[in-house]
């Protein structure tokens, strides 16, 4: 009953209200752990991209060539890279352990005499590239499917949802494994493109596809909710065309969700890729990824554990950083949280 319509503002406003992107950016800048995580990721990416430089200037050996008879100089004495084993029955050889010195075999050698540290960097490159490419594929496809499904509804929605459901009913892992095994053995053709077996595109394709339902369903749900929202109804009432509603009302809201998904999907992809590579059905030799190196290190687990430990640790650090960043991004984009946290 009391009607207080503002004809004139009572007091001057201090500053223009800031848009949601500015607020998010401001919040993110204040989030120290997210910034630290981002820094760690940058370091990891740079180090991985610098792999060829490392191999050339620091370790000196080609990490993809076996070096069974190599020798290196440690503390003035020359030692063979693969030494007679002192464990168990004394048969076989044990690779040299970490020298902890910047130079050849910083982290020691694997059972083929290759420099572990150099392989670690190359492996990082492959792991990161695959995770990134698969994430792009997944997000693009999932957004497309989710938005189309939610926006158009009806038969399109039902059809797409059923497909996604069946895809999702497959335990992700089994689906990835199945596809990998079938496709790894020979090349496949997608339209005019041939993906050769052993190409890195295969894991990208498989990992990208497998997580599509995981992202598509929430996006579809979000789009459905948005379609019911009053501001969309208002836009329709004002006579806006479907395209306009899609681009100006729906997509900006969906973009927020997608951004939150980016670090998450990257982390999931890395875990999946390493698992597949560990099982020998992801990245194929001669390429190396952190997962394959762990696999390499399995046989050496009790005698030279660093070969398996180092890449695993690398994965933990990278995925942890991605998760922390993911949390930070999500908190920053949440309109309800304050810049101070809590």
């Amino acid at each position: 009953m009391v009607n207080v319509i503002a004809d004139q503002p009572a007091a001057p406003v201090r500053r223009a209200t800031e848009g949601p992107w500015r607020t998010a950016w401001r919040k993110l800048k204040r989030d120290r752990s997210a910034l630290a995580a981002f820094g760690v990721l940058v370091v990891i990416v740079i180090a991985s991209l610098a792999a060829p430089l490392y191999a050339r200037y620091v370790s000196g050996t080609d990490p993809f060539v076996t070096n069974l008879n190599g020798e290196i100089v440690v503390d003035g004495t020359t030692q063979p890279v693969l030494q007679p084993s002192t464990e168990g029955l004394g048969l076989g050889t044990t690779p040299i352990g970490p020298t902890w010195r910047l130079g050849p075999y910083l982290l020691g050698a694997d059972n083929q005499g290759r420099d572990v540290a150099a392989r670690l960097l190359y492996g990082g490159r492959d792991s990161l590239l695959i995770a990134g490419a698969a994430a792009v594929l997944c997000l693009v496809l999932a957004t497309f499917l989710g938005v189309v499904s939610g926006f158009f509804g009806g038969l399109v929605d039902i059809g797409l949802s059923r497909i996604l459901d069946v895809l999702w009913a497959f335990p992700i892992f089994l689906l990835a494994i199945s596809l990998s095994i079938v496709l790894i053995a020979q090349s496949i053709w997608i339209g005019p493109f041939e993906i050769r077996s052993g190409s890195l595109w295969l894991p990208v394709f498989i990992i990208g596809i497998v997580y599509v339902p995981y992202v598509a369903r929430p996006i579809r749900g979000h789009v459905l909710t948005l379609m019911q929202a009053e501001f969309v109804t208002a836009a329709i009432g004002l006579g806006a065309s479907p395209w306009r509603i899609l681009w100006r009302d729906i997509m900006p809201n969906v973009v927020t969700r997608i951004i939150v998904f980016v670090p998450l999907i990257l982390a999931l992809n890395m875990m999946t890729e390493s698992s597949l590579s560990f099982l020998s059905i992801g990245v194929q030799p001669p390429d190396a990824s952190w997962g394959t190196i762990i696999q390499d290190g399995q046989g050496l687990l009790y005698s030279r554990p660093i070969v398996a430990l180092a890449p695993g640790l690398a994965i933990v650090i990278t995925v942890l950083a991605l998760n922390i960043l993911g949390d930070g991004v999500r908190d920053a984009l949440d309109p309800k949280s304050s810049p101070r946290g809590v």
Partner: protein
Amino acid sequence: MLAALGFRLGQMVLVMFGISIVAFLIFFATPGADPSARIAGRNASQETLLQVRHDFGLDRPLPVQYGLMMNRLFISRDLTSFVNRGQLVVPTVTEAIPVTLSLVGGAAVLWVLGGLVVGVIAGATRGSFVDRALMILSLVGVSVPVFWLGEVANLLTQSRWHDTWLFSWVPPLGYVPLTEDPWGWFKALIIPWFTLATLYVGLYGRVLRASLIEMMQEDFIRTARAKGIGERRVLLHHGLRTSLVAFVTMFGLDFGALVGGGALLTEVVFGLQGVGKLTYEALQTLDLPMILATVIYAAFFVVMANFIVDVVFVFIDPRARDVR
């Protein structure tokens, strides 16, 4: 309500059917993939290939192949392995089920309890040091690849610290049937249980904490506080009880996926001959009938888990009972 259940059941059967078709197609009909070539081995002669095709019915049209496979799988259950000639597929799978169930079941108990404790304590002490510490630990738990953690566990318990009092009791890798030796069964599974549970405790702890915090902002929590019943009761009886819905849903799905073979990495690393390991070995040797059997079994479990989750959901959330 019965009509709704019946509908769900029907849907389940349809999805199962769809999955069996997809599985069949992936393995038997991928363009460029010729099962007979794999079975016969490399460089097999044309006659051998033809012979193999005929023996295994691979020269029949696809739908017929599908029908035959399904028949051998479910009805006559005499499907034999392509690789280990003569090995009956179905009994092998059924023998592997208790192993997987033991592994996943035990881990599930650990991770549910762990997740509840972590989630509730972190949610209740929001912003405190305890909360932050728990969340960091959870985050680490989620970031560790389970197979690597298993390797590290093995390194410590089987090799490095095996001779110390800490881990001398750890038996060599492998499964001990419960019926044979309960204590041995337990000892063999403890380390795998903790390894598998780590990831999920982290995940569930975080989800529960977030859910609880969101729930505690709701109006009905304010009403509950105004009743003067004590904060602990408000948190548990009102906050947690309402958050449980999401928790249970997640659990049902994860449990189903794991039992269906998602635990294969853990099984491989610890040498437990469960369904996951079976699947993996079958995949490596491209033992198609075995693959088909395990994949369908896996999917069945997932779908079954979905169904059970739906049913349980109706019981724990009264709002769901009337909407149907």
